[in-house]
């Protein structure tokens, strides 16, 4: 008998006095979920992200590239990795000054792994959405914006549209219909890489980015409101 059959056989032989019903997860979340405005939700997300050592900058569709480039100057970053032919990557590449080298992730990682590990200062990716309850950014890496972009460079810039903030993880996965088809890799990122493994002392940049920087794109209405 194969190990598989033996294990399943032993499990099937067990008695069950009662058969539990399917847990009502959705009902619990609906009851728990608070009713809040978009701005309250945004504030909740940003507060938690900042508490987890994330830098948050509120930007608009017109000024976000300028902000990003200024941050690169402030942080003395010289090589910025962007996705392959993404609208936001292209936007940065178009207006990058001469002293900022903008690299594209266009080849399989094996072809340039050493460069990625040792010679890239920062990366820029899009967040698909975010979760206010836990202060998390949701990333679904794609062939254009691969998995290692949000992991290997020491500084990670993330662009998030304020309209895509969910109340909690359950709402994010149900509203976006995750169970219909998961990508190779789905990620929640809630701060820079960290560890407390040495005497419970918090240290950032354990293996992943030392800095996580959120560029929060405000919706048009807020922009107009701000301008008025």
């Amino acid at each position, binding site marked *: 008998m*194969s*190990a598989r059959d033996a*294990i399943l056989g*032993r*499990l*099937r*032989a*067990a008695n*069950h*006095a009662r*058969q*539990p019903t*399917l*847990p009502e*997860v*959705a009902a*619990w979340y609906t009851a728990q979920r608070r009713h809040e405005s978009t701005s309250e939700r945004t504030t909740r997300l940003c507060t*938690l992200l900042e508490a*987890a050592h994330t830098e948050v900058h509120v930007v608009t569709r017109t000024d976000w590239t300028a902000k990003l480039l200024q941050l690169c100057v402030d942080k003395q970053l010289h090589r910025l990795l962007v996705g*392959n032919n993404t609208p936001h990557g292209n936007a940065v590449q178009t207006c990058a000054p001469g002293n900022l080298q903008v690299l594209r*992730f266009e080849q*399989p*990682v094996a072809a340039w*792994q*050493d460069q990625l*590990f040792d010679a890239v200062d920062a990366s820029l990716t899009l967040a698909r959405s975010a979760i206010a*309850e*836990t*202060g998390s950014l949701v990333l679904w890496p794609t*062939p254009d914006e*691969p*998995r*290692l972009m949000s*992991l290997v460079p020491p500084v990670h810039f993330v662009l998030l549209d304020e309209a895509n903030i969910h109340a909690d*993880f*359950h709402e994010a*996965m149900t509203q976006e219909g*995750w*169970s219909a088809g*998961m990508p*190779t*890799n*789905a*990620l929640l*990122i*809630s701060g*820079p*890489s*960290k*560890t*407390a*493994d*040495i*005497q*419970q*002392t918090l*240290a950032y*940049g*354990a*293996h992943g980015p030392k800095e996580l920087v959120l560029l929060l794109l405000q919706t048009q209405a807020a922009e107009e409101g701000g301008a008025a």
Partner: protein
Amino acid sequence: MKKVIPIHPREEFQARSRSVLNDPAQRKNFRGAMDYLQSKRRAQFVDDSELQGLRTLGEAIRQYSLANLPRLLEQLEANLQARGVQVHWAQNADEANAIALTIANKAQASRIIKGKSMVSEEVGFNHAMEAAGVEAFESDMGEYIVQLAGETPSHIIMPAIHKTKQEIATLFAKEVPGVHYTEDVDALIAIGRRVLRRKFAEADIGLSGVNVAVAETGTLCLVENEGNGRMCTTVPRVHIAITGIEKVVEKLEHVPPLLSLLTRSATGQPITTYVNMISGPRRVGELDGPEEMHLILLDNGRTQAYADEELRATLQCIRCGACMNHCPVYARIGGHAYGTTYPGPIGAIISPHLLGLESTYPLAFASTLCGACSEVCPVKIPIPDILVRLRNEAQAKPDTEEGSLRGSGAGRTVAATAVWSMWSQIYSRSGMYRLASWFMSRGRSMSPSEQGAWTQSRTPLIPAPKRLRDLLKEKSKK
């Protein structure tokens, strides 16, 4: 791997406990760490009704998953296979290691980089790989420190909790080439980061555990703060995940409540830095991620716990470690004293299934049954009830219906059995009880002053000069 079965498990456990109790530095480390983790958890659960509601939901999800376990395992297997993941089943540690070695040989791999996995500790993965000439390198900072020191983890969430930064500084200066002594934690972490980045880049295989496996989507969920888990599952060309068969749930929506309970209970975080959900190897067109992916499903005694409806609750565990963080025994003797991969209250109730009661029965007695563990357990495992059950199993009469587990009766001694059988004779017959209590009270001057473990730190037990019966009689005469 052959497990070393202690010949005198009780004495060996006592000796290990005593050595920690006599080491003030270690006791201070553990006490400090437990206070830290307890206060972090408390700060996460300010609303008790929310906590209790979430615990009830977590328990329901785990019980539902276990009730449907064989079906969910088959569904998980089918969905993973459809996404190009090879699924393997292992009945014990030897089979699990053999599967990993076969994968390594086929891939012509000589270097494995490991993310944190308690199941890999359970099967003695590193030793098995080393014996076969394959390097297995730990990449979680705590695990890296512990491996560098040639030790094993003393806590399931914080492996190097028993070490001070001074000890780690000395260890790094001695073991890492070109490193000078520094107690600066940021500098120490930077050293680990530098060493391990090379290891990630060079490794052929990445090994990881699994926190939750989702049957309906064929997804493996991993939580971590450091990013080493993501490195291990993304950089090397082969990814092997290893997990106990109990970790599966049916639906993706079962993940959020379990992860919320897990991270808040474990380290007092609303969520870990990374939640990594993997549903297969690199697909056509993708530029990174492993080209080959495997899942090893391990039994190793879990089906024994599953067979018994009371003990099945042991498998509800999501490995948060809150039970050990709140255990008055663990806080004093630490993780190594238990002598098992999983220490603390959960270790005491899971280890008998993995290793047999013959070597692990003393752990069930290393509890005051205060109930702190079950009070904080995020999935409401009735740990004290199970400890009592295991005590009974340990003292069951061999070859009878009383004992149903591997190693039942291993803790039975002639002296204890004789004392309890005499006690039960006396207490179930009023004449005998009257006679015995008369002799005890009248002969109280003959009570021994040395009463074994009791008198080590307490005054001897001496019966009262008059029994309650005598006092009542006197009162009624007046």
